[in-house]
């Protein structure tokens, strides 16, 4: 008799894609609003984006129950920070906190693929990208989730600075304006929606800049 295998998993993947792009004085964080399980759609209207602090917004794809728990833990930790320091956490500080929180569960991880966007202490846009156990890096742009493999090469083409080894010498990429970045994000999602079954319905776009925070939605294909 072959050995019986465990057939219950504590995890599920609810799909979806998250993207963030950092600008000179703004940051765009976007995620689709589709929540699925297996080949079924659970809802077309679920937000994967969470405002952690005045200048930090996190988008997470993966197992949404773990994502929710992670968001709650970070919110509580932020409250404690505010009581102790009488101010909001900066985005780089929140980035480190998120990393530590994820690694804390190194041996039963949060099944969450996160992208943290915001403004750093100088007011410049910043994006931090994570794996499930807290390894993180500050980058200019990032994508996570089921559509990440479709979006990342496209963003590399549009945003990555050309190598200094290239001949003839090319200029560094011209800085993107806020509207251009939002447009780029919409393009990313429309393309990913075409080929990734787990991405679609709507994309929620959050923009953080010196004037504050605002949110917009864009319809996507629902198939």
């Amino acid at each position, binding site marked *: 008799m072959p050995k019986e295998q465990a057939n219950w998993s504590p995890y599920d993947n609810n799909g979806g894609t998250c993207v963030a792009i950092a600008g000179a004085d703004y940051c765009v964080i976007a995620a689709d609003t589709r929540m699925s399980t297996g080949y079924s759609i659970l809802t077309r209207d679920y937000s994967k984006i969470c405002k952690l602090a005045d200048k930090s917004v996190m988008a997470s794809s993966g197992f949404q129950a773990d994502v929710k728990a992670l968001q*709650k*833990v970070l919110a*509580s930790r932020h*409250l*404690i920070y505010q*009581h102790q320091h009488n101010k909001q956490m900066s985005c780089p500080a929140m980035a480190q906190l998120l990393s530590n929180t994820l690694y804390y569960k190194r041996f039963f991880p949060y099944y969450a693929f996160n992208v943290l966007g915001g403004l750093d202490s100088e007011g410049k846009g910043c994006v931090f990208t994570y794996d499930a156990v807290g390894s993180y890096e500050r980058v200019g742009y990032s994508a996570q989730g089921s559509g990440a493999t479709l979006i990342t090469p496209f963003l590399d083409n549009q945003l990555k600075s050309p190598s200094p080894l290239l001949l003839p010498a090319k200029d560094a990429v011209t800085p993107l304006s806020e509207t251009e970045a939002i447009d780029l994000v919409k393009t990313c999602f429309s393309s990913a929606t075409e080929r990734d079954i787990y991405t679609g319905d709507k994309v929620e776009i959050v923009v953080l800049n010196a004037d504050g925070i605002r949110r917009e939605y864009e319809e996507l294909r629902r198939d």
Partner: protein
Amino acid sequence: MFRNQYDTDVTTWSPAGRLFQVEYAMEAVKQGSAAIGLRSKTHVVLACVNKSNSELSSHQRKIFKVDDHIGVAIAGLTADGRVLSRYMRSECINYGYTYESPLPVGRLVVQLADKAQVCTQRSWKRPYGVGLLVAGLDESGAHLYYNCPSGNYFEYQAFAIGSRSQAAKTYLERKFENFTGSSRDELIKDALFAIRETLQGEKLTSTVCTVAVVGVGEAFNILDQATVQALINEFEISGEEGPTNESVAEEAGGESGGAATEEGGAATEQETAPMDI
């Protein structure tokens, strides 16, 4: 109260059925600088006197935000107060995490009281030497509670604790019946008048007092100095008199430490020692 053979340990009863260590802890509250609280149907105001040790030092913080809907003012050993505020904050955060809703004030106050009681029944602990005026808003309305080192707590319409608080209490006793219907600004004004009473003739400026408000649609916040000074100027310039002067003179004896003055007080409050309730 005087030194006797039953007051060394908190776990020793006196033949008269008193725990002297607990009563001494309540004396510590009376020695602290004054803190007052008052509430209306929709708002609760906390105010305290902030005297610093010397001109060179800053004053101690006596009012703490516990959560958006709860704040606390302390009198007595401020270190103990700080530790208890941290506990209260932690309880609010944990409750919010579990239930995604604000911790009802009455619940928090009971938890605090139970925590204080533990220290009255362990030989290796001492009672907290701080009195807390807990101001908060929840579904059942605006609340003001007073937590004693003894582990007792009471709900009040208005109350004052700390040194020379009797003067403030007398003022509040005269005015409390109108508080329920008061507006936010009237409540703050009454709080400032009450604080002025405890200063016994010293000039009331925003450097010696702190005022905090919580109310419907207003998260707990401590008013900044400029706002408080503006409010003080408003009523000083208009020459408004809070209480009448005779009662001020009478209460000058008020809260001197040492003697266990059993001031019965008014309908809304009970004195601290002994703890029979």
